[in-house]
Structure formats: structure tokens, C-alpha cells
């Protein structure tokens, strides 16, 4: 019973500063096993800082637990090895490497039980367009393809929790929709997802719960399907 109630990720009072600016006020958040949680908020709300604090790319105080284990002291690369993989804003691709090389590097933490090429094949099943761009340099891909590659590369590590920072940013609505649908598909297969978006009606349709972040702190937490009943929130995020 206890194992069922232990969240996949639990952040307690995460707090981060950029110099004197308190970019992330004490923030607590949970993501359950196989749950898709969305964090919404305007520009400068602290969404990216929150994700970076969770991966320790930005130094932060507070505690963080993953599958019940205290990982507060773990470095970024050790958190990745534990199964927390982040797709960064701007995708963070290795622009001078090919699609294949980017994907291979995604499997950096993978053990030898499954070959890298098998993982790549499963990514190509999810994003067939990447297969056509196999030997193409990542920086020469379109925005949508780059985002697919960034997600594909993250999946190569077989994450237990996938965190995405505004994956739809700068993409055509159709492409953004396609990518978010794929995330929904991954979630239905049991992958825990923490999705950060600015205004994302589609993300809300996929999510079970939503956190609203404003001025560096969480101002609301509610089931995603209840956002319509909140006049101010629905006006801001759904229209």
C-alpha cells in the first residue's frame, strides 16, 4: 500500500535565487507514478527555474525525493541516471552532431541489457520523420523535427520521469499538437511526465493535474478538468 502512495517525484520547498532575485519561492510539487502533470504560468513565473532546480542545473534549497528516495544531494548527472530526464527549453540539442549521434548520446546512461540501435528503432517508430533525417546534422532540422529529436533523445535514456520545458514553443500549431499527442501516448504507456507550458489547452487536455505558477511561486493546484470552472484561469489559459 505504501508503495502505491509514494509519489514518483516529490519536491519540498524548492527555492532558488539568481543573485538577489528570488526566482523560485518555496515550492512544493508532486508527480505520481504514470501521471502527467502540467505546470502553467506566464513568462518569468519561474517555470524553467523550477525544472532546473529539480535537476540541480540551478542550485536550490529544499528537498527532493524520487520514488521515495531522498535525491537532494545527487548531482545533475546522477539524477539523470536515477531516471529523471529533462528536455530543456530551446531543446539543448548537440547542433553539430547528426540525428543518430544525438540519439546515441541519449543512451549514455543505458545499461547493456538492450542495444542502442533497438532503442533508436523504437524512437523512430514514435517519430518516423527522424528516420528520414538519420544522418542529418541536428542544427539543420526544422523546429518541429528538432523538438522530436530532443524528446527522442530523452527517451533513449529510458526515463522514469520525463520533464519538458515548453516543448511547443516556437512551433506551428499542428506540429505542437502532434508532439503533445505523442507525449499523451507515452503517458498512456506509463511514463510519468511533468510538462511545463505557457498557454496550452492541449496540455491541459492531456494532464491529470495542473499547477499554476506566478511570480516565482505556486498559486494554485487543481485537477486539469476543473480549470474551466475557474473564470480567471480559464480566460487566461484556455483562450
Amino acid at each position, binding site marked *: 500500500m505504501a508503495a502505491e502512495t509514494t509519489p514518483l517525484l516529490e519536491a519540498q520547498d524548492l527555492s532558488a535565487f539568481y543573485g538577489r532575485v528570488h526566482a523560485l519561492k518555496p515550492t512544493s510539487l508532486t508527480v505520481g507514478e504514470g501521471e502527467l502533470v502540467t505546470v502553467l504560468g506566464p513568462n518569468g513565473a519561474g517555470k524553467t527555474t523550477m525544472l532546473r532546480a529539480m*535537476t540541480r*542545473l540551478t542550485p536550490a534549497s529544499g528537498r527532493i525525493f524520487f520514488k521515495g528516495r531522498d535525491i537532494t544531494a545527487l*548531482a*545533475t*548527472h*546522477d539524477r*539523470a*541516471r536515477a531516471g529523471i*530526464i*529533462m528536455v*530543456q527549453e530551446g531543446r*539543448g*540539442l*548537440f*547542433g*553539430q*552532431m547528426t540525428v543518430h*549521434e544525438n540519439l*546515441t*548520446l*541519449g543512451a*549514455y*546512461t543505458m545499461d547493456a541489457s538492450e542495444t542502442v540501435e533497438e532503442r533508436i528503432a523504437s524512437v523512430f517508430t514514435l517519430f518516423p520523420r527522424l528516420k528520414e533525417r538519420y544522418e542529418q546534422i541536428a542544427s539543420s532540422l526544422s523546429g518541429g523535427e528538432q523538438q522530436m529529436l530532443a524528446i527522442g*533523445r*530523452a527517451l533513449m*535514456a529510458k526515463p522514469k520521469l520525463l520533464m519538458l520545458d515548453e516543448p511547443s514553443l516556437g512551433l506551428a500549431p499542428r506540429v505542437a499538437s502532434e508532439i503533445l499527442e505523442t507525449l499523451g501516448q507515452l503517458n498512456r504507456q506509463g511514463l510519468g511526465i511533468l510538462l511545463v507550458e505557457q498557454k496550452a489547452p492541449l496540455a491541459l487536455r492531456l494532464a491529470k493535474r495542473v499547477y499554476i505558477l506566478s511570480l516565482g511561486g505556486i498559486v494554485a493546484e487543481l485537477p486539469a478538468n476543473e480549470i474551466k470552472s475557474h473564470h480567471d484561469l480559464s480566460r487566461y489559459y484556455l483562450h
Partner: protein
Amino acid sequence: MTSRATTFTRRVATTAAPVALVLVVLLLALNSNGYVVTIVGFAAIYGIFCTGLNFFMGYTGQASFGQNAFAALGGYGTAILTATYYWDPVAAFFVSMIFAGIVAAIIGYPTLKLRGHYLAMATFALGLITYEISIEWIDLTQGYMGYSGIPPLGVFGFELATEKQQLVALALLLLLGVWISTRLRDSRFGRALRSIAGSEPAAQALGVNVARYKLAAFVIAAMYASAAGSLFAHFVGFISPEVFGAAMVIQSFTMLFLGGIGTTWGPVIGALIVSMLPEVLRGMHLKELQDVAYCIILVSILIFAPKGIFALIGEGVAAITRRRATETAPSAAAAQAAG
């Protein structure tokens, strides 16, 4: 078929052609006088030095202005062990290399926490400090007088007595150095290094221990530099602080950027060009225009091939293979339809 042809074309351009170039230069030098042998020998030594530097600056994308310090460690280590303590050159070579690696690990651990300009300045200071030590610690290094009486390369009492024999050994060691570099670049280790060059946060987020890999690249570069310093000491038979001064850093940077930083063969091609071009121009009897012509050629190469000559060759080959692929695809489709 197209894929095989593409792979074959790439291999020829990226491996066979540079190896052939090195062998051709070697053969030409072996059939020339002693001066040419010396120039080509220096090019090979710099090729080894720059191949090591490429690990840290090219593959890993960090800045080091202090690799001359490790060349000095290798050079003086070899000189002292062979000329004063009569060690076998090979043993002295490896002991100096390991010592340089350990020093690099000790210095690199705190230094590599710095980034960008700060790292560049710290490494530059490392080179300056080593230079000052080599001048001031006269009992050990003989200061400005330099260290002479260093025996030529050899193993178990067998000496490579002539410069030409040594040149062959240098060429073989250069090819070995590049082979190791190529193997490591294409390995999991090499991909991790290149991911750091691409984006440190992204590499960390994928599980790469950035600090450890940077340190490993720094140590490898230091060991290559030490090897180059040792080989220089054996090849010339004399070293002084000036050999491992700031000019070495500038020279190696020119070679690295001209040949193609981050590419496998770029450092070697850069070393060959920068070492031999002044001599070629001198042979053309341009007199006082020689230096001007040298600068114009270097600047032109950097303007028209900003990623270096080897990268330019790589891009050319990629363009040819792409064109071939597009030409072959319709005919293959037609043949399939007809069949």
C-alpha cells in the same frame, strides 16, 4: 550500393587521404636534405601536440592556453632522466608522460571548475609559471643555458642514430596518436566529450559527469603534450625554456584552427601547413614579401574555410555524396518500377 559507395568515399577522404598525405610528406622528406627532415620532424611533433590539444579544445570545447607547461614537463623529464640518470629513452618517455598526467589531474581538478575566459587565464598562468620555473630552477633545468646531451630516440640500447630514422619513428607515433584520437572520438567517451562542447547543461541532463570528463580530456591532452615535449628533446638533443614558451601556444592554436579544430586529422594538417608553408615561401625567393604572403595565405584560409581545411574537405565530400545519392535515387526507383 549507394550507401556503400558513400561510406567508401568518406573513408577515403577522412582516413586514407590524410594517411597518404603524411606518408607522401614523409617520403619526400626522406629523400631530401637534413633541413627538410628537421622541418617535417617539427611538424610531426607539433601534430602530436595539437592532436592532444584537440581533445580538450576541439572535442570538449574548453580553452587551454597552458598546454606548453605539460610539453615542458615531458621535455625536461626526458632530458633529466636520459641525460643525467641515463635512463632508457622509452622508459623516460612514459614516466614523463605519466608524471604530466598526474600533474594535470592535480591542477585540473580545481582549475576546471572555472569556465570561459577565467579558465583560459588560469591555464595561461600555468604555462607562465612553468616557464618561470624552467628559468629559475637552474639546478634542475640549467635555466637559460638549456639542457643538452639528450640522446636520440631509442629502445634497449638501440639508438635511432640518424635524423631520418627518427623522422620515421615520429611519423609512426603521429599516426598512432591520431588513430587513438579517432578511436576515442567515436567511442562513448568521445561522444560524451563532444556533448560537453555542444552544451554542458544538456550533457549533464543526459547523465554525463561533465567535471570528470573535462578532467579526463585535460589529462589526455597533457599526456600528448608531454609526449611531444619528450620527442622534441630527443629529436633536437637540446631544450631550453624558450622552446616551451608562449610562442608554442600561439603556434599550436594557429595549427589547430587552420587544420580544423574538433576534427580528427585537422591538427595534423594544420601542423604540416604552418610548419612547412614558410619554408615553401622561402624557396620561392619572395624575400621581404615572404612574411606578408604567409599572413595572407593564413588569413585567406581562415576566411574561406573558417572551420579549418579538414572540415572544408569533409563538407566537400558530404556535398558530393549527397549529389550522388540524389542522382542515384531516381534511377534506382525507375529500375525497381521496371523490374
